[in-house]
């Protein structure tokens, strides 16, 4: 009998190949929870496959049943009867002895901005606001250069030289500094949102975004309105991202 013709062997082989591909074929490596989920789906698919008709099912179940009842396979049966309870027992031990992990910090990453803010005592309408410096195209380079200098003297320590959120203080803080290279950050946001976040920093976050834990300073204490817009321009220029526009009629 050719082993590969056996439904059981096929099922096992598919599972092994799927595991190897999922485990080593995905870069960066997927976490175990994701892997478990994928493997469960593969297992379901395999079960559907082997039970597609009754012959196939019988073929699949045969080796299992044989192990359970066949007098010639007493040894294999004995091995399973010893090994499986030990494995389950060991798993139970690892679960019981596991050290508790710090609870996850759940937070809203991009909370809705307020309609307006008080910036150094001046009211600034956030909704519908665009970067006023962009109107003056002739000075674009000048503003970006000024923004670069502001960034490197203030923001670099956390957000990194490469704007990837990997500055030298980054590994010490949770939540980690924003990665501006990530298309899920500034590219999804209007410039006015950034203005709000930079001006008000961690303490200005709404409660669902854990304002007590963010180390982002409120930069209105240090940067002027123009400087804030300049550094925003630098963020987009240096990463090649484009700010989201306000939707018409909003």
């Amino acid at each position: 009998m050719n082993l590969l013709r056996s439904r059981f062997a096929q099922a096992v082989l598919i599972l092994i190949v799927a595991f190897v591909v999922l485990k080593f074929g995905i870069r960066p490596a997927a976490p175990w929870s994701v892997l478990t989920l994928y493997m469960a789906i593969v297992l379901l698919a395999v079960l559907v496959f082997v039970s597609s008709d009754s012959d196939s099912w019988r073929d699949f179940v045969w080796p299992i049943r044989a192990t359970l009842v066949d007098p010639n396979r007493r040894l294999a049966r004995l091995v399973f009867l010893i090994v499986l309870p030990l494995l389950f027992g060991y798993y139970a031990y690892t679960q019981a002895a596991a050290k508790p992990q710090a609870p996850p910090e759940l937070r809203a990453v991009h909370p809705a901005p307020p309609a307006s803010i008080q910036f150094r005592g001046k009211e600034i309408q956030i909704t519908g606001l665009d970067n006023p410096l962009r109107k003056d195209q002739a000075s674009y380079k000048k503003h970006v250069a000024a923004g670069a200098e502001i960034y490197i003297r203030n923001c670099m320590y956390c957000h990194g030289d490469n704007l990837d959120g990997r500055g030298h203080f980054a590994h010490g803080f949770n939540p980690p500094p924003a990665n501006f290279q990530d298309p899920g950050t500034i590219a999804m946001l209007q410039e006015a949102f950034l203005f709000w976040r930079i001006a008000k920093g961690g303490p200005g976050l709404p409660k669902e975004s854990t304002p007590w834990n963010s180390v982002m300073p409120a930069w209105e204490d240090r940067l002027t309105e123009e400087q804030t817009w300049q550094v925003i321009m630098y963020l987009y220029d240096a990463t090649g991202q484009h700010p989201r526009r306000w939707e018409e009629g909003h």
Partner: protein
Amino acid sequence: MGRGALIARPLAVVAAVALALGAAPSRAAAQAGDATAGKAVYERRCAGCHGEKGDGKGPAADLLVPKPRDFTMGLYKIRTTANKVPTDQDLFRIITDGMPGTSMPAWAVLTERERWNVLAYIKTFAGEKLKEAPKKVELPKDVPSSEASIKRGKEMFEAIECHKCHGTDGRGDGPSRAELKDEWGNPIAPANLTKRWTFRGGASRTEVATRLANGVLGTPMPAFLDSVEKPEDIWHLTNFIQSLGPDSPHYATLVTVTAVTGAIPDDPNAEFWKKLTPNNIPLMGQVIVDPRNFNPAIDLVAVRAAYNDQAIVFHLTWDDPTQSADEPAKKLFADAIALQFPPQITAGPERPYFLMGDGSDAVYLLRWENGKGVSEASANGPGKIAAIAGGEARGNAVFTNGQYRLVITRPLVSKDATRPTFTPAVFVPVAFQAWDGGAGETGTRMSVTSWYYLRLEEPQSNRRFVIPPVVAILTLAAMLVVVRIAKGRA
């Protein structure tokens, strides 16, 4: 035979695919870069620190310690050569991997081509000074690490007086420390040999041996290749240095407080504390409130903690090259450290602002200061710290060879609402602050952390010894039932 081949072939294919996917791309061989193309990369990525002219005077330079490299001198710290000139591969590696413990990040985000181009451009700043051909340093034959080799390395460490700068235990606290300057006249700190992950030129054995052999150019670190008793002493020294600390700090995210039935020693050097696993917490500069601290002196505190039915005891270990007390005239301040908790442990995620609270929510500080000992305080921000009357905490600190070890003891249950009561199995927010007064740190010039969690483990239960056998027996029973049913059907 045929069957074996059939199985073996797919397995071989799977293995080959896995290998191909998992293998890291090999480092490229040296390439000739295009300096003109490199100029554009340089001005966009490097000039902020190293300056348009390559003189290390970019707009960020004054905030950085160590200072950005001045390329005009053609002096490079990290090189694998016996002479002054580094190989292109040396420079390429630093650009690619960065320099740990400095502001130089890894530029692996640039393409290899861009890195070679920027390298070619950087070399133009030094002009004639890099004209000499690099000459590879020849390391003596490798001596693998062993107890005997480490012992010999320690002897050599003492004989060649590494401790003059690096300190007796290698924590960078030697007597010459304060005098050291680099060739640009900037103060420079000797490496803390117990924190290998901060080594500028890398922490591998070959890298450490190379630094020992040919020195660190432009700094006080001399070449030792001709100055050890026997050439292989370079490797003994390397093995000894590698034995001084772990290769990585393994930062903790949760501080576990061990349950103890008896008394907990208040001697920081007691054997009891050595048996507990340290929870390493990284500390960062405080850059929110003026004056800011971009270059914090204390970057790590190792926290151990235990509790019994009466008290909770914290054991903190951190490196500080000098023991200093308050002497404002000399710009010296008292070394200090603080643990911060919410005044009350509540169930929800809400807690006070991590930086010593704010006007609406206070924090509780358990603070130790050199010369004053342990005190308890309530803070509504870094500038608003008020001592709590009727202190219940006490402490005991020792300072040896550039390291503080401190024990703080506090009752588990507090008398009033200004300080928390600790309960087992509850996640308690905790944060840390530290000051190296000898480095001029005081007030908001400090190292900080954001909120971490601390948890008093449940008193030792025998759960983990009871559950597994029960599970095993139940599994066996279930299997026997299945076999019985299967046999019955057959």
